[in-house]
């Protein structure tokens, strides 16, 4: 449908990155502050939905040429993989490990395997939301 979305599209182009950055922030902040994988993923998905509303499915498909079902699967692999990592050390599945490490730019950071797990959650949420919306959208 050719409606004049100029305002929406322009606004979207500006706002999109803000939303995505915010969602990534939410993602990383999860362990200490409100946030986490679900929320981060949902916000990113919301951003992409905004993109869809402003433009159309084909354009979005060109910008993000992913099969979102595979994104979901990759997310699941991350999550299961994190858990399975513990198997290598003969620890119960999904045992997390964390440590403080000195990274080059960031200085003293605490690293936690929960991040990997959360990435999995993040990807799954994005993949699922977008699969559903794309599928329903395509069947219009």
């Amino acid at each position, binding site marked *: 449908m050719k409606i004049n979305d100029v305002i929406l599209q322009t606004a979207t182009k500006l706002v999109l990155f803000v939303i995505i950055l915010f969602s990534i922030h939410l993602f990383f902040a999860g362990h200490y502050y409100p946030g986490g994988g679900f*929320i981060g993923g949902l916000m990113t998905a919301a951003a992409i939905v905004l993109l869809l509303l402003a433009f159309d499915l084909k354009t979005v498909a060109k910008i993000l040429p992913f099969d979102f079902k595979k994104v979901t699967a990759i997310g699941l692999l991350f999550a299961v993989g994190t858990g399975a990592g513990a198997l290598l050390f003969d620890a119960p599945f999904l045992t997390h490990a964390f440590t403080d490490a000195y990274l080059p730019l960031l200085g003293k950071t605490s690293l936690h395997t929960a991040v990997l797990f959360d990435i999995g959650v993040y990807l799954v949420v994005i993949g*699922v939301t977008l699969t*559903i919306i794309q599928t329903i959208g395509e069947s219009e």
Partner: protein
Amino acid sequence: MSLLHLAIISPLLLALLVPIFYRYFRQIHTGWFLLPLPILLFIYFLQFISHTKNGEVITETAPWIPSFGVDFAVRIDGLGLLFALLITGIGSLVVLYSVYYLSKEHEKLNTFYIYLLLFMTAMLGVVLSDNLIVLYAFWELTSFSSFLLIGYWYHRERSRYGAQKSMIITVLGGLSMLGGILLLHIMTGTFNISEIILQSGDIVNHVLFIPAMLCFLLGAFTKSAQFPFHIWLPDAMEAPTPVSAYLHSATMVKAGIYLVARMTPVFAHDGIWIWLVAGFGIVTLFWGSFSAVKQTDLKGILAFSTVSQLGMIMSLLGIGAAALHYPQLDDSFYTVATTAAVFHLVNHATFKGSLFMVAGIIDHETGTRDIRRLGGLMNFMPITFTLAIIGTFSMAGIPPFNGFLSKEMFFTGMVRVLEMDIFNLETWGFLFPVIAWIASVFTFIYSMVLLFKTFTGKHQPDKLPKTPHEAPIGLLISPIILASLVIVFGFFPNILSHNIISPAMESILPGLLVEGQAFDVHIYFWHGFTVELFMTIGVIALGTLLYFTYPKWSRVYGIFTERFSLNRAYDSLIENSQTGSYNFTKTYMNGSIRTYLVYIFSFFVFILSVSLVAKNAFVYDTSNVSQIRIYEIIIVLIMAIASVTILFAKSRLTAIILLGAVGYSVALFFVVFRAPDLALTQLVIETVSVALFLLCFYHLPKKRHEERMSFKLTNLLISIAVGAVFTLIALSAHSSKFFEPISQYYVENTYEKAAGKNMVNVILVDFRGFDTLFEICVLGIAALGIYAMIKLRMTRGKEG
């Protein structure tokens, strides 16, 4: 696993080889390969006579399920041996007969012989098992091999009908017997028959004793076609005649008789056993012979005759059991009944077996079994005619055949009932000899009908599909052997007395004799001018009279028209139970999801309210409740108003937005209760859901039809009730905090052990990360599912 065990399962093992014989040696009739086995088994079992004659009993055991006391225990005593000899002896003759009866070109012999061998194993297992569970297993195997044999010509509707009928009735009995076995086990702690017999005196007064007895009797009566369960036997005649001769006259139907005989020492302690067994027996005797007279199919006459004769043996066993009530040695008073029962068991097998084979020969040679079409065959089939004379005269109880001897003893047994003073038999006991006599008259009549209508009278060649001639010698051998036995046992009955009958009686009536004593069985013709002799003369006289005046009185059969027959009752039971079940099920399984939900929620409300009241479970404790603030009340009001307004919304759009409003209110609650993660998630999810709903509802039809007021009212009531129940339980649950919840652990340890300050998130990915992992799986599956559901639309293709 002894030789005895091997003997029992050898037919089963041979059955495995039958396909090979059939496949590769087609030119030789498969029956020839089988014939050696029953003959060998017969000879094998003969050797046990020397043991059982002395009262010895042989037992062997092979384990099957020792933990439950179920072992493949076998036992040969007089009774079991008698049956084993019958099974293998008649079995050999039947196999020989079948070689000439079943054409090897037209019949699928492999399945026939497999079924037959299965049956043989099963029947041997029934009579030789000492463990009731194993006996039951073999019992059911006989039911199913019989089922398969009756339905052998499965393209015929009558065969299928007969097979199904026999299966239902005999399995009903079998299950009942199983119930009885379990009850006995509870009373005695064992499945082993010998041990149960030893304990039988102790369990007589147990509350489960009579129920167990009834269960066993139901099993026996169904298998042995006692009234009113006899209706399956005439329909079983659809089976090929060798099967009718083997199973449905000589062996399988006698399994019930065997069971009654075997269990007499256990149950006869209670006088009601005598009444039930003898009573059902005598009624069956009468009903069978009465019905046999009007049959027009040769096998039909023989079928009802078998029913009647089984009734006779059953009544004799019942009367004979009275001997157990009189432990003194005046026991030969009633034991004559048991002697008669055993003797007649053998006799019946000989004459009935030969008569069935004769019927088969007639069918084979003329193409019909209808006595209205047959007649005058004695000129064409003289040998067959002779065999028929021997068989029918014995059946009718005419001297000098074996049937006469056992009939006389039968009358003796019945007459002696008049002397019994157990259980009201003084008053009603006279019925026994009276009914016995009347039934014998009918027996005489149908025997004569069978003989004369077929072989004498007018020959009607135009009504016969084939030109009659004498049967080939192969078909004649078996009935000739049987008929010879009729004569031999008639003239020299005492061949059997000490070898077979006496040991069998010991199994049935143990404990009556002291060590080393044996039943004094002595059978002979002339007892003088006794009551029994006059009864026999009376039977012959009246029978002859009625035979010739048959057209005058045959109208009595019209009294019980087809409408009230038991067969009709059975058929309508089967038919109506299916349609009735269908209608019944359809009333509640009507496909309407709303109806189902009404039932489910009504049940929910009902059972939980009852439980709340019955268990006094409602507790209301407000001591731990925090202060309710004003904005909480406002948010609740918004939620409530929004929810209720949804019901009255005119358009879907409004409804969805209101739904969103409810969701956002919940998010607000999360904020108020200081759960920012939950609030954030709820807000985004709600937004996405509303968007998706709007997208979907775009496609739905515009107008929903208006529902009836009663519909809406029911919905309203149920909704309120469900809500109320939930609230009551919630309040009680809240007021019943008994323990410190495990969340305390999380509060304390979330930073120390899990390196996170956001407890909610830590729970999600760490403490209970396993849950989260699978929740995201659920999300993934849902996405795949939605994708597949929308993309894949198969038209009405091949399902499977």
